[in-house]
């Protein structure tokens, strides 16, 4: 048995696929699945690894999925592949690092036309940090604009990887797939580790199932685990009895045991998610290992926003929704907060803007709760004149101007890769966002990598969208937190019909306050429908009004004609009107549509588009 296990272990290959968005990661994963599991081809829906609807809709991967495949190689032997799919977006590098820790190698996909992009770099560094063997794969060679040789050189020059043996593929047309599989066999090392030693399994993800309890996704580093074994969670010391172990093919398939190199799932009637921790080590209760595996650093949220139910009766439903989502997404943070304008809600922390949007959509769609999202904000460090220092994650909590000695805001180091033609435009955009250039590196005769220090608060909203639209989609962005800096920041309040609306407060740089204030009051005038009375809108810094606009009173809203043929249409009109009102929140005496709270930030006049 032991010898069998050892032989089998030599034939295991654990790998991930890393790539910039849209370079073909999911299509290649599909092809690999098809080649190794031909039976599945009939049942397979495109890009099956993206199990959640939302993921499929947006064309991105969010959750990890670990699939076991069998490949009969040219040498006649049968190999066991574990493919761990990873997200490509900058928000989810946490997820990427988790999956990489469960692999020995990674396929690095680079688009043969686009070449190396910012995201590619970020993920490669993560892979290198984890000591993975990286196999460059140049994809989309079928495109007329493909330049594989140029890209190979880029990989060597920019990343520093030997790309002479890079595999050339067109995942869409099915070219080069066999080469990829053979290269995996040849180049990616088999897992080392002792199948007979004390059990050491890394939990790289977990999912809550109402029947089976917590399902842990594990990679066996050492030892073997069987159904019926007694295991121990090293972080909490809690013990459990194993109910099921198995692998994903991609459907879950139960097995009798999992051993070194295996990637799969384990359930043990674990009722509370807090009993397991991602990054923790599972070991045997009877023969425990002495040392746990190095765990993960918990990623801190970068972006915060307020989430409020439109209908205050749904507060508890919202709380439950956040609880459930947190089970499967440990990077989501939330805590209760109150707004004078909006009532009871939550301040939530996300890894980034995309993360925030996904969670919002999931709450609206899976839980059916209409939400008001307030503007995203970052954490500020405030030093009061008395000397005390505090953190503020909500603009409305910013103390009075006179009490403040200094405000520091988080900065990021942003790397923007762009074609030459757009350098000017990119620089203008960054400068308009209070960026300070760090460096500019010409990667080749066509592309530049520009690095800027930019305040995180200027990135969190639509920086990425502006970057894309100003560069016809060619520019790519990556960023990481680079510390705090003092800035001349002030709190701007919005006063609606004489009432200060805390949910609309923003923190702005003093120099931009006037322009921003003007934009916001004009935008609100557009978005808020006319009421039965005149509504003044003002932007204020403390007591000083710096901008104003007025929404005139509604004068006429009545259907002129209503005869026999109009009655059903009239009814539909009234119903639609009524529905529209539901999406409004009464703020003081004013009916404000949900979109207004967030859309105040969609200011398209801060840069030329």
């Amino acid at each position: 048995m032991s010898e069998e296990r050892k032989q089998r272990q030599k034939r295991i290959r654990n790998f991930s696929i890393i790539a910039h968005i849209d370079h073909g990661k999911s299509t290649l994963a599909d092809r690999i699945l098809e080649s190794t599991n031909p039976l599945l081809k009939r049942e397979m829906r495109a890009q099956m690894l993206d199990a959640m609807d939302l993921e499929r809709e947006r064309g991105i991967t969010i959750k990890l999925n670990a699939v076991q495949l069998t490949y009969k190689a040219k040498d006649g032997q049968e190999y066991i592949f574990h493919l761990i799919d990873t997200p490509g977006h900058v928000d989810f590098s946490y997820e990427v690092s988790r999956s990489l820790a469960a692999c020995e190698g990674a396929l690095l996909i680079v688009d043969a036309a686009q070449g190396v992009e910012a995201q590619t770099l970020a993920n490669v560094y993560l892979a290198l940090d984890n000591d993975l063997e990286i196999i460059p794969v140049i994809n989309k060679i079928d495109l007329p604009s493909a330049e594989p040789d140029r890209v190979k050189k880029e990989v060597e020059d920019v990343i520093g990887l030997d790309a002479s043996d890079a595999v050339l593929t067109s995942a869409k047309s099915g070219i080069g797939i066999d080469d990829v599989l053979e290269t995996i066999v040849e180049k990616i090392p088999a897992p080392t580790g002792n199948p007979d030693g004390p059990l050491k399994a890394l939990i790289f993800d977990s999912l809550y199932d109402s029947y089976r309890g917590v399902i842990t996704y594990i990679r066996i580093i050492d030892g073997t685990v069987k159904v019926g074994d007694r295991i121990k969670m090293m972080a909490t010391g809690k013990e459990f009895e194993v109910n099921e172990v198995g692998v994903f093919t991609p459907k879950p398939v139960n097995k009798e045991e999992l051993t070194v190199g295996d990637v799969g799932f384990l359930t043990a009637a674990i009722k509370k998610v807090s009993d397991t921790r991602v990054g923790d080590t599972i070991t045997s209760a009877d023969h425990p290992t002495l040392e746990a595996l190095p765990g993960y650093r918990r990623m801190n949220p970068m972006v915060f926003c307020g989430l409020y139910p439109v209908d205050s009766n749904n507060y508890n439903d919202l709380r439950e929704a956040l609880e459930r989502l947190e089970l499967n997404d440990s990077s989501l943070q939330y805590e209760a907060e109150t707004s004078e304008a909006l009532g009871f809600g939550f301040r939530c922390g996300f890894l980034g803007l995309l993360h925030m949007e996904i969670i919002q959509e999931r709450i609206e769609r899976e839980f059916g709760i209409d939400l008001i999202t307030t503007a995203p904000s970052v954490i500020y460090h405030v030093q009061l004149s008395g000397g005390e220092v505090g953190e503020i994650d909500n603009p409305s909590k910013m103390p009075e101007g006179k009490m403040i000695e200094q405000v520091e805001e988080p900065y990021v180091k942003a790397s923007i890769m762009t074609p030459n033609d757009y350098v000017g435009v990119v620089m203008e955009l960054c400068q308009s966002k209070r960026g300070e250039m760090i460096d500019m590196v010409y990667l080749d005769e066509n592309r530049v990598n520009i690095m800027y220090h930019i305040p995180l608060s200027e990135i969190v909203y639509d920086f990425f969208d502006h970057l894309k639209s100003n560069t016809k989609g060619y520019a790519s962005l990556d960023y990481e937190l680079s510390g705090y800096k003092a800035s001349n920041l002030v709190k701007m309040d919005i006063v609606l019909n004489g009432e200060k609306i805390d949910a609309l407060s923003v923190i702005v740089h003093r120099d931009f306050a006037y322009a921003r204030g003007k934009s916001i009051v004009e935008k609100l005038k557009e978005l808020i429908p006319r009421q039965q009375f005149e509504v003044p809108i003002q932007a204020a810094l403390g007591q000083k009004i710096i901008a104003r606009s007025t929404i005139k009173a509604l004068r006429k809203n009545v259907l002129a004609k209503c005869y026999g043929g109009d009655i059903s249409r009239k009814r539909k009109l009234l119903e639609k009107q009524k529905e529209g009102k539901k999406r409004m929140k009464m703020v003081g005496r004013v009916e404000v549509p949900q979109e207004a709270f967030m859309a105040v930030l969609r200011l398209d006049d801060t840069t030329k588009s």
Partner: protein
Amino acid sequence: MIKGAYVHIPFCEHICYYCDFNKYFIQNQPVIAYLKALDEEMAEGLSSSLHAKPETIFIGGGTPTALSDEAFAFMMDSVSNRLYEEGDTKEFTVEINPENLNPLKLDVMKRAGVNRLSIGVQTFDDHLLTEIGRKHTRQSAIEAIALARQYGFDNISIDLMFGLPGQSKQQLQASLDEVLFLQAQHVSIYSLQIEPRTIFYNRLKKGKLTLPSQDIEADMYGYLIDFLAAHGIKQYEISNFAISDHESQHNLIYWNNEEYYGFGAGAHGYVHGKRVVNARAIKGYIRRIEEQGRACVESHSVTIQEKMEEEMFLGLRKLIGVSKQQFLKKFHHPMEQYYKEAIKALVAKGLLVEQDGWLRLSRKGIFLGNEVFEAFLI
């Protein structure tokens, strides 16, 4: 009891820029075949009802008077035959356009029992008339009305519009003055509504139409209500005004939430608790009548809840409002059972008036009618 009958003549000689009724250019249309089918539909429709003939008849369009003299005579004869009953029929209206009214048609109508004419004028300003695609002039409108009076038609309604592109207050005033001068018994005045599938809509989409602001429209509306009232023409519905005892009986059927037949292509009816719609296309209509004697393509059974809602959002269009007593009689439950909160809120906002057992729109409520009507959807 099915109180009224609407008859639709979907033919026009030209298309006005704002019109979204079911209509077609009359050239090359199977007009006679249509009128024959219409005749059959009316015969069938009445036969299924055991009651007497309806109290009101309204022939609208399109442009009923666009028919040739012969076709028009045929049509009037058929309607009169099938629907008219001396003693039962209280009001018989025909819509006319000034440019195709002539003595022959007036004569035919008189003999058929028509006692009310509704004239599409829209404005008495020649320039504005061209702007909106009308093919008559101020003069021809005045002459048509004079001619009608000569033939003994003493119940005349004039259709006007306000909020037209580029229309000034003076132009509106001139039209109102004309209405007074012509001693119209009834006026229907509509603020221009841009509907999809109209020429104006297309222009608006292309940015080629300038409409007056909501404020100007509201000013005009307020002005004309007061002006007409000062001259004895009282507002009795959102867009309808009349001298005493000359309200449109037919249209009141709609706002009183009562039942009516709808004959013709695209006509809507409310019979035996169902709201029904006929096929809109001419050929489709004719074919269905030939095959089944009926042309209904949509039918919706009105639920009690819907009926209540309609009672309110239609009834409140009348300035007199809705009677609590009648509501109770009709639905066996007091209005307050369903609408207590809504009524309270609307009264508090100054949009609704509760008085002597009636619920009606306040002056402010007339302007913001939709805000009120919406509150009565359960």
